[in-house]
């Protein structure tokens, strides 16, 4: 296609060469090319993914999928996706031509699309609502400390939204992409590889949808937002002021409990509560996403528990009124609330429960009357739902019937257990309930209380019990003391990690420093003992100089640690800033969208590239250099699967907890296959062998010890400089030895000189290099090292043949090998970066 030609300095670029189809986006393309500048355009041919379709990012996706094996876990062997089916795919392709692998890939894409749909509809509802009130010209401004708002949008669309009209343009693009992906998920004839690329695209779009919702929260509804706060305050901001746990709610007062993604009913309820001076009379608390949103605008809010354990909060009798919107982990909230006599207000068009009538049109007085006579009502307008909750809650309290089972009742009910073990075999965590029931029959309910610590309250046991035992009620009844004492404090979410913090972090674990890396912990605690495990993992990592950031329900789980010696909660124990040894709470689920931009900031600062529809360029940098890992601990929801695929595409490795074995797709590398671990010298284009790192992109683990060791291993990056290499290797050796009693079989692959082995362990490791790996060592010096092909060579030859020389520009993307040396190996910073940092002298 011939297109408009743009002159940047002496370089002329045909837009049709830079963008697949420049029609309608010439202005965006020209803007990006101007920013790239002449020097960079002489070095590389630009490829811009403006309003990207999945295939526009295929250059990068193929690099990734060539390096990592896609492992499909679905056992299904037949397809029922069209009226011609079912087709047995075990021996040959289906009638439409789809093969078994592609069919499994389609299943993954379907899961990712479900998550994307959920996030897009939430973002759309919120955006439409905000546009109704403020109009499309309303400015997007995240504050003076955030120069690049909505980087997920910029990476896919090529521009930074300035107002709501821009945001709507980005969201409409994502909605159209979802339609395209859904077509592929159901009718596509692509290869498995193409479908996996589309699944990753769904992940990237999920970040975009979350980012829209999160940006509106901070810009329009004034949620806590680090972009508006001077960085000098970050160390202890926001304050550790939010009570967390089942025991923190004062149930002698009327209690409104908000659940689901939509915070608007809570926002309006809080506004009324404040107007009427009811802050000390009504308890406002949240579960799951709402639980993490409300404390960002109401300092008296309380977080009860994660979305995974919502059933526990209701069975424990906490809410008088439940206000529920769409849920990430659906359950029968109306039926659960009915058990304790609580009222349910289902808010929004998507909160459409069977048997619950939409009465939005009724005036408030009649709504109150209706809800007095009925268990639940659907209200589609958030203002009305919030107002109704405040109006009804006092009366709802009077009608409540909740009471935990007494010890005698538990013992009596336990006699009905026939030890068929249907519950044990249905339990995802293999909890031995029949043994606890036997003990209860014999007068000891302690074993049931022990199960409380491990139970995720999914209710599968009750579902399969042939005798209809209220097993969860019995566990909860036996744990009344634990519930009463479940009291902790957390720091509410703060939104983004700012540029200024990343400037510091760049020196902490990229350009030097002694931080092994940065971990983003997300998920929702649906794992036995999750609360204890998560807090322990946070402490382990922070104590080893990592920065840990949490987003989503996991923040409430992480909060459940109190240091008896220091008399501090975990959020008080560590700095709240984005620094080494920092522990940051970003916010609820939509705050997950801050994570990719946080990683892109590392690239911006390290490289001078501005993220704008230049996917390969940005992600190549961070994939090869930045020690960033995401840990997903808890429920294997579609959302978590989708974002995991999105993170992998952003060059960030993902470790998934035990539920992750259920993810439809893993992306695993093979450290033994040397052909997979190569890079291009960015100057000469010569292929060089590098360490197997990051060795996996999406990998499930079984225990927290495995999680910690794998996270630390995944910090390794082929272009990391010496000090960060030392920090991550030492952390890896320490973890593997401490947790598993032996060093790993691959640690030596990450050694380039004795200086990269920590001095405390150097002698021991040098002896091991000599004894187990055939290196030649003299005193505390490596004399000769063994290459992976078996040759024993001196260190000069070793470094020449293995790994990248420190600081040498290199890439995994062939296009990014430079065409022409222009004033040094790496291009000059973009105008925006230069504005912030100044232009370095050549």
């Amino acid at each position, binding site marked *: 296609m011939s297109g408009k030609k743009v002159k940047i300095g002496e370089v002329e670029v045909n837009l049709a060469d830079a963008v697949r189809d420049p029609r309608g986006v010439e202005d965006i393309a020209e803007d990006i090319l101007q920013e790239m500048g002449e020097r960079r355009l002489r070095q590389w041919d630009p490829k811009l993914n403006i309003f990207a379709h999945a295939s526009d990012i295929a250059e990068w996706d193929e690099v990734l999928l060539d390096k990592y*094996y896609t*492992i*499909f*876990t*679905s*056992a299904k062997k037949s397809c029922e996706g069209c009226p011609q089916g079912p087709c047995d795919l075990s021996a040959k392709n289906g009638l439409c031509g789809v093969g078994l692998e592609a069919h499994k890939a389609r299943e993954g894409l379907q899961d990712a699309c479900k998550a994307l749909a959920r996030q897009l509809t939430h973002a759309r509802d919120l955006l439409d609502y905000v546009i109704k009130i403020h109009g499309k010209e309303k400015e997007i401004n995240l504050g003076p400390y955030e120069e690049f708002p909505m980087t997920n949008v910029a990476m896919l669309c090529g521009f930074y939204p300035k107002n709501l009209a821009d945001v709507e343009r980005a969201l409409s693009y994502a909605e159209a992409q979802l339609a395209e992906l859904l077509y592929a998920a159901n009718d596509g004839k692509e290869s498995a590889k193409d479908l996996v690329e589309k699944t990753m695209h769904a992940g990237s779009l999920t970040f975009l949808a979350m980012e829209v919702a999160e940006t509106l929260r901070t810009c329009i509804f004034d949620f806590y937002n680090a972009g508006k706060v001077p960085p000098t305050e970050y160390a202890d901001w926001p304050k550790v002021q939010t009570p967390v746990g089942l025991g923190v709610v004062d149930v002698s007062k009327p209690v409104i409990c908000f659940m689901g993604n939509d915070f608007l009913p809570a926002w309006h309820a809080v506004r009324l509560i404040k107007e009427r001076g009811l802050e000390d009379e009504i308890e406002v608390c949240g579960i799951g996403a709402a639980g993490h949103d409300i404390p960002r605008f109401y300092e008296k809010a309380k977080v009860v528990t994660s979305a995974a354990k919502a059933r526990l909060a209701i069975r424990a009798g906490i809410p008088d009124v439940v206000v529920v919107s769409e849920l990430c982990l659906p359950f029968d909230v109306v039926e659960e609330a009915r058990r304790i006599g609580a009222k349910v207000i289902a808010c929004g068009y998507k909160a459409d429960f069977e048997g619950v009538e939409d009465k939005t049109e009724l005036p408030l007085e009649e709504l109150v009357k209706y809800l007095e006579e009925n268990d639940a009502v659907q209200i589609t307008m958030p203002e009305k739902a919030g107002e109704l909750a405040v109006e009804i809650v006092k009366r709802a309290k009077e009608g409540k019937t909740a009471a935990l089972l007494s010890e005698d009742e538990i013992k009596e009910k336990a006699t009905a257990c026939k*030890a*068929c*073990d249907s519950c*044990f*075999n249905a339990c*995802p*965590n*293999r909890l*031995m309930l*029949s*043994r606890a029931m036997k003990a209860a029959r014999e007068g000891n309910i302690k074993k049931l209380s022990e199960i409380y610590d491990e139970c995720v309250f999914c209710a599968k046991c009750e579902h399969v019990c042939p005798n209809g035992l209220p097993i969860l009620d019995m566990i909860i009844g036996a744990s009344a003391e634990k519930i009463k004492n479940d009291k902790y404090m957390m720091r509410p979410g703060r939104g983004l990690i700012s540029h200024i913090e990343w400037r510091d972090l760049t020196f902490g674990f990229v350009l030097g420093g002694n931080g092994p890396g940065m971990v983003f912990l997300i998920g929702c605690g649906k794992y036995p003992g999750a609360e204890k495990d998560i807090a322990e993992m946070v402490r382990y990592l922070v104590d080893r100089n990592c920065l840990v950031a949490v987003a989503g329900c996991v923040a409430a789980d992480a909060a459940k640690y109190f240091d008896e010696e220091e008399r501090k909660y975990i959020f008080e124990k560590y700095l709240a800033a984005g620094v080494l040894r920092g522990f940051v709470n970003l916010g609820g689920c939509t705050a997950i969208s801050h994570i990719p931009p946080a990683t892109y900031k590392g690239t911006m600062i390290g490289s001078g590239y501005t993220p704008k529809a230049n996917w390969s360029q940005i992600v190549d940098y961070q994939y090869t250099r930045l020690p960033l890992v995401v840990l997903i601990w808890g429920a294997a929801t579609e959302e978590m699967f989708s974002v995991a695929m999105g993170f992998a595409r952003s060059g960030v490795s993902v470790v998934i907890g*035990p*539920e992750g*074995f*259920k993810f439809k797709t*893993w992306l*695993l590398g*093979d450290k*033994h*296959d040397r052909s997979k671990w190569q890079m291009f010298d960015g100057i000469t284009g010569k292929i060089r062998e590098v360490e197997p790192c990051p060795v996996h992109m999406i*990998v*499930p*683990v*079984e*225990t927290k*010890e*495995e999680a910690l060791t*794998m996270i630390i291993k995944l910090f390794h990056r082929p272009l990391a400089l010496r000090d960060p290499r030392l920090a991550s290797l030492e952390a890896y050796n320490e973890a*593997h030895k401490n*947790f*598993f*009693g*032996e060093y*790993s*079989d691959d640690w030596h692959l990450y050694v380039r000189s004795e200086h990269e082995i920590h001095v405390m362990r150097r002698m021991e490791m040098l002896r091991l290099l000599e004894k187990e790996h055939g290196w030649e060592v003299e005193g505390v010096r490596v004399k000769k090292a063994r290459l992976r092909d078996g040759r024993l060579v001196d260190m000069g030859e070793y470094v020449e043949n293995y790994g990248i020389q420190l600081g040498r520009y290199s890439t995994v993307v062939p296009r990014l090998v430079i065409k022409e040396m222009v004033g040094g190996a790496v291009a000059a910073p973009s105008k925006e970066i230069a504005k912030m940092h100044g232009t370095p002298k050549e």
Partner: protein
Amino acid sequence: MAAKEPLEIANFLKEKKRKVLVMSGQLCEKLELDGKPLLDYAVELANKLDAAVAATGNTVNAVRGKVKATKKMWAAEIPIYLKYNWKEPFERPEVLVLIGYTPDAARALVTTMSGVVETVVLDSVEVPEATASLNTMTIDKWKESLEEIIKNLG
């Protein structure tokens, strides 16, 4: 269907005992069948089969020194090594015996190894995707079945 009686499983394993690898998962350390840790069953099985143990999760510490060979391994990596690049220290197995995994994890793992290696799952929940597994059964029956398999291995 994969479900087989304990004696059938024992006979199936006996035929291939020189190339069997036992994979012990996280639940081996957590579950006790009337006071006896599941891990002890895994060790007895490995010894009767003269098999090495690929100790996943945290089980390597408890298995070390009790079987002829063991190594810390990562459950998710085993399928790719089997498929593409099996390395020492163990002989490439013909059969993998999985014990101590949640049913979801066991199902995913045997699915990813389908067509590459035969798999036997010794849990109390049937895993149809495996070459062989026990029936879905009570805890007591599971304990008896494991004891019966061990007894019939020699």
